[in-house]
């Protein structure tokens, strides 16, 4: 994700885009699986939260804009960085919520005992 900044000057667009592109599909898959997992385990609130993200990814994929384009990478740089920052913020939010729920759950169990 941080590659966007990296290639400011130090690596050429070919390397950077191939490196970025390599992790994009796994990222989408992991996200999808996570969402599915939430749904299955009954944390529907969390699942609901991660649905927009999933939708966005799927949409990008359907429009075939999910991969970084070598030729236009410099024109897209700003947008790509923004997009990735948003995603990151979103993920962090999810993470916190997950931890929160986990602690809540742990406390609950504690109380029960």
């Amino acid at each position, binding site marked *: 994700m941080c590659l966007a900044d990296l290639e*400011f*000057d130090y690596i*050429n*667009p*070919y390397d950077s885009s191939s490196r970025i592109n390599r992790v994009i599909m796994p990222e989408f898959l992991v996200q999808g699986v996570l969402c599915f997992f939430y749904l299955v385990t009954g944390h529907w609130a969390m699942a609901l939260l991660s649905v927009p993200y999933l939708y966005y990814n799927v949409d990008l994929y359907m429009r*075939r804009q999910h*991969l970084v*384009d*070598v*030729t*236009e*990478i*410099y*024109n897209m740089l700003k947008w790509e960085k923004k997009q990735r920052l948003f995603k990151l913020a979103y993920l962090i939010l999810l993470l916190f919520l997950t931890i929160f729920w986990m602690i809540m759950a742990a406390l609950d169990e504690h109380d029960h005992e």
Partner: protein
Amino acid sequence: MGTENPGRPAYPGRPATTPFGAPPPPNVRPFSSTPPIPGSGPSTFRPTTAPPSQANTPFASSGPMAETEAPGFQPRPPSTFSNPSAAPPPALPSYGSPAPGARNFQRFSTPQFTQAPQGPPARPPTMGQAPFGTPPAALVPGAPPAFRPTANVPAVPMGLPPQRATYAPPGGSVPQLPSESVPSVPRPNFQQSYPAADPSVPTGRPTVPPLFPGYPNQRPHAPPPATLSQSPFAARPAGDVPAPVVASPFQTHQGGYVQPHTVPAPFGMPPRDPMQHSASGPPSNAMYGLMEDFNSLSIGSVPGSLDPGVDSKALPRPLDGDVEPTSFREMFPLNCHSRYLRLTTSAIPNSQSLISRWHLPLGAVVCPLAEVPEGEEVSIVNFASSGIIRCRRCRTYINPYVTFTDAGRKWRCNICSLLNDVPGDYYAPLDAMGKRVDFDQRPELAKGSVEFVAPTEYMVRPPMPPLYFFLIDVSVSAVRSGMIEVVAQTIRSCLDDLPGFPRTQIGFITYDSTIHFYNMKSSLTQPQMMVVSDLDDIFVPLPDDLLVNLSESKTVVETFLDSLPSMFQDNVNVESAFGPALKAALMVMSQLGGKLLIFQNTLPSLGVGRLKLRGDDVRVYGTDKEPALRTPEDPFYKQMAADLTKYQIGANVYAFSDRYTDIASIGTLAKYTGGQIYYYPAFQSASHKEKLRHELARDLTRETAWEAVMRIRCGKGIRFTSYHGNFMLRSTDLLALPSVDCDKAYAMQLSLEETLLTTQTVYFQVALLYTASCGERRIRVHTAAAPVVTDLGEMYRQADTGAVISLFTRLAIEKTLSHKLEDARTAVQQRIVKALREYRNLHSVQHRLGGRMIYPESLKYLPLYGLALCKSTALRGSYADASLDERSAAGFTMMALPVKKLLKLLYPNLLRIDEYLLKPSASAQDAESTMKARLPLTMDSLDSRGLYLFDDGFRFILWFGRMLSPEISQNLLGHDFAADLSRVAFSERDSEMSRKLCALLQKIRESDPSYYHLCHLVRQGEQPREAILIMSLVDDQIGGTSGYVDWIMQIHRQVQQNA
């Protein structure tokens, strides 16, 4: 700034008189000391310091007397100044005006003045010396008293020397001048005006640094003008008409000079300077200036009425073609020629807020290898021993604007102002004026464009040989259209003319549903063909012998080309494995790079990169999905383009099909590899043969730069942020151009990095590092300077319509890739409206504009070109008005066109030629004048008794009026002159008239060789064929698009809406 500072410091001192009154040396002193002050403009300024010494000398000579008088004058100067300021109080806010004026003045006068100081050193005797000499003479008798005071003030440092000497005695005049030391008032104005003016000074003559010192002073009131100025000034307060008492030699100066003051508005109109110059009396000048403040168009329409109230004939039309910005060049004679670099405005704004008010794109159009007329070739410099001299920090190449200091041991970079050491080999002492003694022998110091021979540090690998690789579609449609035959013949005829003779390499692949490789080893007598049919896993048989050295294998290559058409004569294969063939070509070429010429006849249908028939679904048009049709369908093409660039392969695409070939996808290959697209819809060798032959031959034989990269550097505080054209960005500011030639131009936009620019001048340097066909690695460097201004009016005045439109075009075309055509057109219109509105606001305060539409002189054609752009093939109408392929091809082409050709394409030439043809003895002159008499592009220009020639740089259209005398048509078309013209081929007939016409066409073709003008014949009223011409008549209202008058009305209305 140089000027301003010197003036300032001196000034404060002045009141006290001490500095001045002091003996000459002191006098000089203040001056010399001042230069350092200007800190901000160090580089340019430096020179000044040096000169003082020299300046002194003249002084000293005249010295004794002058000094004594000096005290007297001092007060004077202020007073003179104050007057002007007083007169145009309203102008104060926009005080920039004087500055421009001053600048003009300088520009012109400089040469002369400069000399004056130099007189002693006797440097370039070139310029104005003569004029100068005279003025003093004239002055002496007439205006001595007046003269003294004024001249003195400003001119103190240098201009004076000559005059002083002569006039010193009359100095008595001093008393005359009421020494109202009102300096305080004038001063401020003064300063303000300066910043703008300054830039020109330093840059104007970097080479001749010494001059500056004198220079600056003159600016306020050059000595000569002073004479006149006196009277005008005196009068000024009362009314602005300057007294016309003027010695003739001076008038010229005055013209430039006075103007600023008399004309309150900032619009001194640099472009017009030359005229002002020649203008005779000051009064007339003043008037002139006033009138030329801006151009206006009275639009007295009653809203809603049918009659727009605009005389369509009065609207400005660029019938003289492109006008290159000249003022820029006069200001900075050392700049590279405008054919290489054109700025959208040659006055760079100094703040963000100015940029945001400018509304037009701020940037440059660069054509690094532009064709030069005979005798103006770029000189080649070889620093064999010392290596290329560049700035340590910003890597700027040495150029005419660097300044040498420290007796020639150091040089200051004009872009980052770092002091660099001069290498031992390159050292040359400075002369008295701070100029290197070997200045004249070093083109890199005397010219804006040079070419350096690059040593091995500039190579990542040995320079590649010129390499041409042909990828030829041999499927059935290619055979039927006759394309293969023409291509084979053309290539064969060009074999001897390919650049880089002994090293040139060549190779071929043909493909239909399989891929055919050819082994053309020199030991063979016959080329060997190898067929690969496995499209999923391409491999290259015989990796070594597919690319051969042309000089060694020439006979084999020739045999191959001779047999190529017959080889596939009976081919009935309709498939096209374009993608795999492209991959194979990449594999073959990846070692060396080079130029890949692709001849594609059908939609790629097999293997990777196969494309679908898009765009026949009418429902898509007008929806959000429409723009997608203009972008590559398959990412394969973008990926391939990126890979091609990586391996230094430039692709040129020739497309021939009469059906959809998806140029949008295939063209991507050319777009990102610095290539271009040639599109021949419905190619038939009978009609298109000549065009293809000419264009292919030109593509093969024109001088080409291989494995090139280009970077444009600019001064601190500004940065190029976006680039537009056919290339690939390799890093944020490095354009990768696998092959470049003279027909490619690139545009880029600027932005300010800092909120306020403090420098007075910014420099641009375009550097193109490439391998020449001869195998030498070279760097072509173009340097230009532009002043920084604080005044919006000045920016508009210095605008360059050609460059602005070029950028507009590229932005609009890029916009069509992601937006609807309509949006792109509106965007163009909106920007024009905003710019004109801003301009109007600038003036509406001082002038009652009423219903007039006003626009700067420099941008008078902007609305028309904007309209033409909206009607161009790439942007016009909706889906029905141009096929997808045509639109894409036009878009790709326009992205690469140099300014001049683009303007011609947008607003083509329309000539009436029947009179010329009928004239019994037509001389070359007649042909000239016929070619110059361009007509407005409207139906009204077409007389049904005439024969017209329409020329947009890509095609000719011959329009036969209905009432045209049959004699002409018969002579030109032979017996079938009455037949349907769509079936008549134009060719030379056996008649005088026909020969004359062909000679004329030939002449036009030669003047613009980059494309072949295909000739179309159209008869008046012959539908639907006539549409090709009617669609191009930009001024007319055609099918839902607005005509010129409507367009102006629309713009005008919108400008006024929120004005």
